[in-house]
């Protein structure tokens, strides 16, 4: 299995403390049903480990089979440019069944962001290079579908079930504790 070839940097979307002993990176697609199912699980895992875990989300849209995945990712980046990435991220996954351009605009409006500015950003593909860069970094790290997880740089081979993710993270915590 792969290792993460693109290290986590401040350009990433990061939840949790910088000095957390374990970093969980997800490559996800906003229209992928598996990613939608993993979303609440990831939140439970974050809650479970508290300050011992930080979470990074990177985009991996399969644009040809998921026509809303790219605009959704660009909308999340747009919100990120206004410091509202995670609110948009949660909003998209929580409303995945209704994912559409109008939903993205409505989510932006609910966050107090300009729908017009978002529309313009989508038309001009302002955030497309960032999505592409996330995607290619994922490909080079061995991401073969979504959702794909890395724990401290190692590709997670188990499922995204709560127990599997917890086990993988605990292994890293124990490895650090025994140093």
């Amino acid at each position, binding site marked *: 299995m*792969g290792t993460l070839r693109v290290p986590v940097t401040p350009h990433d979307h990061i939840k949790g403390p910088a000095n957390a002993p374990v970093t969980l990176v997800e490559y996800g697609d906003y229209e*992928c049903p*598996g990613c939608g199912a993993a979303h609440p699980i990831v939140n439970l895992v974050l809650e479970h480990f508290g300050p011992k875990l930080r979470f990074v989300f990177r985009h991996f849209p*399969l644009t*040809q*089979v998921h026509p809303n995945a790219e605009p959704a990712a660009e909308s999340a980046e747009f919100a990120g440019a206004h410091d509202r990435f995670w609110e948009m991220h949660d909003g998209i996954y929580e409303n995945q069944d209704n994912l559409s351009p109008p939903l993205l605009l409505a989510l932006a409006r609910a966050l107090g962001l300009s729908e017009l500015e978002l529309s313009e950003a989508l038309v001009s593909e302002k955030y497309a290079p960032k999505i592409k860069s996330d995607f*290619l970094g994922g*490909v080079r*790290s061995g991401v073969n*579908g979504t959702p794909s997880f890395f724990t401290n740089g190692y590709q997670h081979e188990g499922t995204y079930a709560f127990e599997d993710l917890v086990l993988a993270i605990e292994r890293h915590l124990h490895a650090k504790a025994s140093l």
Partner: protein
Amino acid sequence: MSKVLPAGTLAPSFTLRVTPDQNLSLSDLAGRSVVLAFYPADWSPVCGDQMALYNEVLPEFHKHGAEVLGISVDGAWCHEAFAKDRRLHFPLLADFHPKGAVAKQYGAYREGDGVCERALFVIDRQGVIFWSYCSPIAVNPGADGILDALEKMSKQETSDGHVTSSSHAA
């Protein structure tokens, strides 16, 4: 797992149906590099599907001047429906009759299951296998191995080019 043809082997030639009324031969792509991706079957679940992934990575493959060909024992009509559904922008070859004949030549046929392995071949401009890899049948091998091989191949071609030009100068 099958023993696939290793690097350094001349890639066996083939002519297969690429649409219900068209054939494609490896020799049609002479002078270009080719990524030949054997896979077990059309219609695997989308988010982890190997062909859907290669479809997204296609611009990167093209940057290296490589053509991508998917190949399975599914028939041309099945491929057509699958490619349309997944909006694939590269050809799928039907190793359908005699079933798996090309896969067998590449050492990428699973006799017991009657399907192709998940086997990858990067073939250089001279038609020689530059890199090959056989993945466990249930594991989508991703695209990192292919991109690493294409990069390495480009570098070697560049350095070979330098050797040629310097020998001309001498």
